[in-house]
């Protein structure tokens, strides 16, 4: 997707004030950033706001991007990840405040995955079934700790290599690998438990 020279030229044009080049960058990366945000934050609405924030941040700091220091994709993903961390911290604070007012059963998170799956169990056809399976996996993904969640999203959904993930997360490659495996295994356990309860 990323031709380093093409992207470097685009960035230079953007910094020089070329709006068409900026549109090209938005065109190239909006889908990817939206998907990372959606899988991490869980909702389309949050993903849309976060993606917009990522681009605003990118637009403001584009001149600080150094081609020599790494791929543009890694830079973009780092901005996205940092904003996701901020978002997670903020929403965690909100949840803490909220939980003082509401009983746990009222919480969306308090609903067991098995209850969610029970509503959707009888699937009419394969496409509905696969869509519902997708929803289940997506819901289970939200149950992972943010460290494991971001690791599996970058590896299994965004196909990034370990070295780049390590750069984005600012942890050693070994830690990245370990988090990916723990994340995958944890997700499988969550889904297996869900299916066992349903059957």
């Amino acid at each position: 997707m990323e031709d380093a020279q093409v992207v470097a030229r685009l960035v230079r044009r953007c910094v020089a004030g070329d709006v068409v080049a900026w549109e090209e960058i938005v065109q190239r990366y909006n889908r990817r950033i939206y998907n990372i945000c959606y899988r991490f934050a869980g909702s389309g609405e949050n993903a849309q706001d976060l993606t917009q924030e990522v681009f605003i941040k990118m637009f403001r700091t584009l001149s600080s991007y150094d081609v020599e220091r790494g791929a543009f994709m890694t830079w973009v993903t780092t901005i996205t990840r940092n904003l996701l961390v901020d978002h997670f911290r903020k929403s965690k604070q909100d949840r803490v405040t909220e939980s003082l007012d509401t009983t746990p059963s009222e919480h969306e998170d308090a609903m067991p995955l098995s209850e969610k799956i029970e509503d959707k169990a009888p699937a009419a056809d394969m496409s509905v079934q696969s869509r519902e399976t997708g929803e289940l996996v997506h819901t289970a993904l939200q149950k992972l700790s943010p460290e494991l969640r971001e690791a599996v999203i970058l590896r299994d959904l965004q196909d990034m290599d370990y070295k780049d993930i390590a750069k984005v997360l600012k942890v050693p490659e070994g830690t990245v690998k370990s988090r990916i495996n723990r994340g995958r295994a944890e997700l499988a356990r969550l889904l297996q438990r869900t299916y066992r309860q349903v059957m």
Partner: protein
Amino acid sequence: MAGEPKNGLQCAEFDALLNEALDATLTGPKLESFKAHARVCAVCGPLFAEADAGRRWLKSLAEVEPPVTLMHNILVATTGYESQRVAVRAKGEASWADPITGWLRPVFAPVLSMSRQPRFAMSFGMAFFSLSISLSLAGVKVSDVRHVDLRPSAIKRTYYETTGRVVKYYENIRFVYEIESRVREFKKVTAPAVPTPKEQNKEKKDNNTSGQPEPRQERNYSQGENQPVLASLPNDPPVGTVTTYRRLS
């Protein structure tokens, strides 16, 4: 877990090779040791199975489609500039008139080719001349016709404007006839000289104050557009020609 080696591989080593195994980059004797360890180790075996299943679940997730407004919103939020695509779409809407020009071309093609023949040229010339005079009296400039906006909303607006102009045109005609009759009377009384614009203006002014003018009609038209048409009647060549024609006939 990390302690006892099974099939020449410790659990920690197995863990380190897990990614490579799942990425299918592990080969040869290392892969064989890995598989053997997974078969016998009560911890590593299930871990491998779970990680493999988790990876498959994740890989089954399809990429989601961002909302169609996302890119536009980003561009507006960052540059305040609207996407080129939006501009292109708007351009596409503007070409709505193209099919109409397409239909009109074959309809008018024979007329146009006929008009090129000398014997018809004169009649067409006369017809076009009187048509353009009628239009200009109605306040429509022939040179502006190609700029007419053909979007539905604009057509509606143009319809009402034109209707207003036509009403005004007929009222102007009545007014012109009155001027003509006054001029004829004036000519009878005075010398056979052709009335000067000044005189006609005076006539018109008299007329305007004396009788007919309906205030409603003036309010329908913008002051700047209406008044000069009436005031410049003798100075305006086409209108002047019309009065001369009528006077001659």
